[in-house]
């Protein structure tokens, strides 16, 4: 079955350390993968996407994500975390259903960056 998963409910990291938020997917055909961030009491904001091409995608606020086809993963990374990066992060994939592309989200990962 087609799906997207975020295996961690919460990730804790110290400020200045690198961070990784994990995402795995299961889709038929080429995956269209996205990361979004949600700050408290706000809507989701687009960070970056992978459609095709270079496996390392760079996005907003210094975030990047690595597409790994063999491991069916699309992990979000940042070399040096900031306290202001603390938020809820969602991985999303376009799943095909009856000829339509349905944007489908993982359950979200809460990132907490400690000073």
């Amino acid at each position, binding site marked *: 079955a087609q799906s997207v998963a975020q295996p961690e409910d919460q990730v804790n990291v110290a400020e200045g350390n690198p961070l990784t938020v994990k995402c795995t997917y299961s889709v038929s055909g080429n995956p269209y993968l996205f990361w979004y961030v949600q700050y408290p009491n706000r*809507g989701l*904001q687009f960070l970056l996407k992978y459609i095709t091409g270079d496996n390392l995608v760079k996005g907003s606020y210094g975030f990047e994500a690595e597409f790994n086809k063999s491991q069916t993963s699309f992990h979000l990374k940042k070399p040096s975390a900031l306290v202001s990066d603390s938020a809820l992060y969602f991985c999303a994939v*376009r799943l095909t259903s009856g000829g339509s592309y*349905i*944007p489908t*989200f993982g359950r979200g990962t809460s990132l907490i960056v400690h000073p």
Partner: protein
Amino acid sequence: DAGITQSPRHKVTETGTPVTLRCHQTENHRYMYWYRQDPGHGLRLIHYSYGVKDTDKGEVSDGYSVSRSKTEDFLLTLESATSSQTSVYFCAISHTTDTGELFFGEGSRLTVL
């Protein structure tokens, strides 16, 4: 920021009453979506639209209906609200169905007593 407004932003209602949430966009995007966000479930798709008068069901459509009579407006209706529909509802828009990112509204918090 993308021009998306949701109204009302907050609503408290009683079980059995009808409720309509409105999503208005100024981007002229073809695709519009309604999601609900609940702890432990992330975002789940309720209904979506791929054009005026063209809508389809999502993962959790039971108890909800939608209408899109104009490109800019996408309405979500709860015909008879239940406590299980207490949630935060998000509208999103996209200019393409496959590779385009979604732009989200600020959300509508609905409490059904």
